[in-house]
């Protein structure tokens, strides 16, 4: 290549390194970087989802579980060989597992998810009926956990060693050591049985009609327990990163300009501390799903997570396979969202790598 004309060389092209420009946020390029990362992460998600599907089907093939027994239930022992052969042919279970898997994936693409034995319904309607309740529970819990983590975490960091810090931080360490289902059982024991303040099972009281008030009172305990199960990690991360950013130069600068302590913490220190928080939020999503499984099971909340346990206990393979895949996709998308948010929010994070 020939050397660039001197006139151009003296003026270092501003477009050459868009990520390192000091001028205010080059939004379009950041957005493009985030989009590129999203595409790359989606490309990574496909093999993971396929891997989970292969794993589930291979395990099922290797296990002593006979899909016919799952399909026929009690009639398994009495059904004649003829009937068994016909059903095996219909279900496609007489084929090797990888062909069965391929057939199943083809069905998935056409929207035919099969029939769930334990609920006696097509899998599609089980999912459609239960997904909203899980979304409600997880959504409320997530908002509650994030708000509590931000408020209490900032408070504990801003008044380090104060009474909030001395109460909240040890409580978080204790909660980190307590599995969600133990917290749930404790909540049942104290607020349901001991004090009889709140209902502990289902969406509504027995026989009561579905109403917003009924659902709201029944939502209090499950949502709070689910929020508490993720709170310690979120709160401690807010506290830690806020402590870090309170020691940074620009915060000292803001203080020395005589700004109110409130303004210093909320407008100058907190924004820098929020980025690690978004990342932690993304990594906790898988645990949030696990928490939802346990909370829905303890509180008999009629959501998808409870259906995971039901389908596993009753070996309802069509439902179990779909739910496993669905959960994997949800967790992958959630952590992708968190990463995209981090890239969009922080000009320092490089999207590639």
């Amino acid at each position, binding site marked *: 290549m020939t050397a660039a004309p001197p006139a151009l060389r003296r003026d270092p092209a501003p477009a050459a390194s868009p990520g390192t420009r000091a001028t205010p946020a080059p939004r379009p390029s950041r957005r493009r970087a985030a989009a590129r990362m999203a595409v790359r992460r989606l490309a*990574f*998600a496909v*093999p*993971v989802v396929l*891997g*989970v599907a292969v*794993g*589930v089907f291979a*395990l*099922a093939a290797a*296990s*002593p*579980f006979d899909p016919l027994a799952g399909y026929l239930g009690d009639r398994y022992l009495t059904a004649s060989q003829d009937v068994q052969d016909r059903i095996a042919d219909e279900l496609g279970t007489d084929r090797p597992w990888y062909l069965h898997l391929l057939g199943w994936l083809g069905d998935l693409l056409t929207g035919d998810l099969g029939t769930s034995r334990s609920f006696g319904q097509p899998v599609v309607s089980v999912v459609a009926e239960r997904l909203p309740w899980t979304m409600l529970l997880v959504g409320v819990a997530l908002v509650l956990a994030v708000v509590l983590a931000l408020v209490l975490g900032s408070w504990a960091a801003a008044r380090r060693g104060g009474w909030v810090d001395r109460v909240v931080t040890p409580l978080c*360490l*204790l909660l*980190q*050591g*307590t*599995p969600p*289902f*133990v917290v749930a*059982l*404790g909540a*049942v*024991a104290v607020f*349901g*049985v*001991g004090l009889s303040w709140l209902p502990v099972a289902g969406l509504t009281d027995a026989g009561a009609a579905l109403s917003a008030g009924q659902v709201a009172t029944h939502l209090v305990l499950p949502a709070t327990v689910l929020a508490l199960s993720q709170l310690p990690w979120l709160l401690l991360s807010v506290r830690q990163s806020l402590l870090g950013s309170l020691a940074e130069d620009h915060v000292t600068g803001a203080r020395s300009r005589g700004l109110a302590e409130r303004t210093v913490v909320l407008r100058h220190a907190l924004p820098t501390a929020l980025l690690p928080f978004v990342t932690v939020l993304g990594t906790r999503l*898988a*645990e949030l*799903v*696990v928490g939802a*499984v*346990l909370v829905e*099971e*303890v509180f008999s909340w009629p959501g998808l997570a409870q259906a*995971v*346990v039901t389908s*596993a*206990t009753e*070996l309802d393979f069509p439902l*179990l396979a779909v739910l*496993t895949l669905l*959960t*994997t996709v949800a*967790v*992958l998308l959630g*952590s992708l969202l968190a990463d995209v948010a981090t890239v969009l929010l922080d000009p320092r994070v490089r999207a590639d790598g």
Partner: protein
Amino acid sequence: MADRDLRLPLGVGVLVLLVAYATLVPWVAGVDDRVTDFSAARLAPSPGHPFGTDSAGRDLFVRTAAGLRVSLLIAVVCAALSTVLGAVVGAVSAAAGGWVDRLVMRLVDGINAVPHLLLGIVLVALFRGSLVAIVASIALTHWTQVARIVRAEVLSLRDRPHVDAAVLGGASRWRVVHRHLLPAALPQALVAAVLLLPHAVWHESTLSFLGLGLPPHRPSLGTLLEEARSSLLLGGWWTLLFPALSLVLTTLAVAAVGSGVRQRISAPRRGATLR
């Protein structure tokens, strides 16, 4: 900070007490799942039954100890298996480099992206009641952290002079890995193993709690807590309190030991690098 220094001795002390409780009490008292006494069902804690009794009239002081023993045993086996698997995979991945390393790290990312309990539920549901399936479901999902740590250690060790010397001396790749790289990564791997223990205890107790792990009559912390779920509604708070307390104490003590040990071994190591 003063409490930093206390963490290790405090954790070790609590852990020793818990292990002594879990091993000695069932050994002295004897545990027989078949012995039931329904006239003594759901008795509140009293001098005769310090932890009360369960719905079949079995003494919970003994049963909690037996449950803790089973849970700890499963957890130790799982943590050991995950550590060996993770250490080997991590070391091989770092030593091989190139596409092997990339493939292994993608596999680790993939496993970490999926909720571990979900994989455990699927595995245990398909192989119901099998202890091997429970152990496998924990070991197969928890090795990734150890692999990451060991890989990072080996990568940082690879460029040290003594490794270069071994390579120049004609040592084979395998010999370099298992004589020079793995032993140096061992302390970090051991800390990771200790920190895996509470995860394994949680995992097992969760599966058993959901009715997918050990059969209900076999005492483990999970099956005891599952039983507490129904006794609780009849006012039996002690059926929840004592098994839950031993579970939480175990987790906290192990976490204290793990972080205490990590702090101790990381301090002199920095000095060694300077020399």
